[in-house]
């Protein structure tokens, strides 16, 4: 049986675009996918000096809400995430591990002074969720520009790449027993 994937909405109710997100992730991952609202307290993860949330602490808090030991959990948070040294991150994952987290904070058009656009947000969120889940399933960054595992440091790079794995990354996943 394929490893179940839990999409956990943190710090808020399940958004209206959840079905679109699940559909997008399901296009890539044939695993069973379930979405739920996780009651994770993000207060201890907030760093006042940076006015951001520490991604590693968020991930650790999220993992305590993983429904079962054999699944992968992906947290989706509306807050801005960072790791020390870097100014921000779109997300973070445990390489070949159980958890990952994605921030929608900088995926929103409003962050860049543009009008709200849910379609763009969902498209970006799907790519980042698939990307971080790819790490959780053991994939590293890919040099192929169109592959969803291509590293993205800016939202433009997120927009440029595709939402699916390239042939190489698929073969790596298959080598790890991915069905």
């Amino acid at each position, binding site marked *: 049986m394929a490893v179940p994937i839990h999409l956990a909405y943190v710090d808020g109710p399940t958004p209206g675009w959840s079905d679109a997100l699940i559909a997008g992730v399901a296009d890539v991952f044939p695993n069973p996918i379930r979405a739920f609202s996780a009651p994770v307290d993000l207060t201890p993860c907030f760093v006042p000096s940076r006015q951001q949330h520490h991604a590693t602490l968020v991930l650790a808090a999220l993992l305590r809400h993983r429904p079962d030991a054999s699944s992968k959990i992906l947290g989706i948070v509306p807050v801005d995430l960072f*790791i*020390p*040294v870097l100014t*921000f991150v779109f997300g973070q994952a445990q390489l070949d591990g159980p958890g990952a987290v994605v921030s929608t904070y900088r995926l929103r058009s409003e962050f860049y002074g543009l009008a709200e656009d849910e379609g763009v947000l969902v498209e970006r969120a799907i790519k980042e969720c698939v990307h971080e889940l790819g790490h959780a399933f053991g994939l590293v960054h890919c040099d192929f520009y169109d592959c969803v595992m291509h590293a993205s*440091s800016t939202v433009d790079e997120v927009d440029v790449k595709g939402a699916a794995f390239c042939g190489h990354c698929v073969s790596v996943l298959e080598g790890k027993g991915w069905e």
Partner: protein
Amino acid sequence: MTERCILIVDDELSVRSSLEEWFREDGFRVETAEDGQAALRAMDRGPFDIILLDLKMPGMDGITVQKRVREIDPAATIIILTAYASVQTAVEALKLGAFDYVTKPVDPDDLSNLVRNALQTRALAEENVRLKEKVSELAAIAPIVGVSARMEHVLEMIRTVAETDSSVVIRGESGTGKELVARAIHAQSRRRYFPLVAVNSGSIPESLLESELFGHEKGAYTGAQYRRKGKIELANGGTLFLDEIGDITPKMQIGLLRVLETHRFTRLGGNQEIASDFRLICATHKNLEKLVEEEVFREDLFYRINVFSIQVPPLRERPEDILPLSRFFVEKYARAMGKPIRAVSPEAEAALLAHRWPGNVRELENAIERAMVVGKGPALDARDLPLAAQSDAAGEPQARSLAALEKDHVARVLRDCSGNVTQAAKVLGIDRATLYNKLKRYGLRR
């Protein structure tokens, strides 16, 4: 593709772990170290493509760690992590050879670009080293073949002078291989990755030689339609080889002396002074001291160029080199012509040894080349060598010892008798034992 490796040196655990995770996702093998001592120990697990080094650490500071790391791996690509407050120290690190620095916290895009640039720069540097080695192999000069003590001495002098930047005068008769010696010096010098520019001063009229050496601007003279760089300019970084230096005119001598003193010159028709850093090697078959005495050659120029002098002996003064040279040329032309000739017959060897070689190695090479053209193999035959006619035509210009004449005569008779010692002894009017003794004494073969 080989795995890329990175070493992260920072005293803060959160920085190490977050960067470790970041770079692992990027496909790196990541090593971490919490201080300078741990970093130096980690170097045993290298080499690392990139070393990310925090400047402010307890104990050994980042600058000291950088110096120690460089001692272990001089080619290490080090990126400095620093806070805004310590930018001045980061600049110091750059002066010590760090690739770049980033201030914490760094934008992910900046870090990605920095790492990508560092990897590309390192890859280019490594490729550059590989290409230089390849160029060195490809540009390997034709070997100087010689087993005689005199040529051993020449080779030793080449090795000695190649390490310096001094001017060299190579002396020797025409055809002794003076340019080969110049190329050997250049190939072993630190200038070997730059060009060796050769100019035959004797074969170019003065009016053209000036333009050839100094170059000219457009319109400098009738027919100068374009600006043209001269040989001196082209030799920048490398070696300028002036063959037949004894043949240049007094006017050219003055011009050349000025360039040698300042390493600056102007193109013909130009005003702008141009600098050129070149090493000068000259060659001549003339007696420069005598030319100075006769006031044909400037004394100041003579002392400027004659810092080091190498005398290439004529072939007749090193007969033990004739056969090794002959075999070398046979192999060379067998390869070039695709001929199955790989050896020299005893008769041909005797003929080669008996010849005086007034044209030196060049004449020997020409003789072998012609013999290889007409020869059928499997060995180079004496009949194919154009030596007898040449010797007759050349006559005997110098008084020779009886022993030399006897050697030539014995070799010739032996050749005429197709190496048959009994028959040759009969022609010479001596017994076979005496002939064998003479063959041994003169190094002749049947």
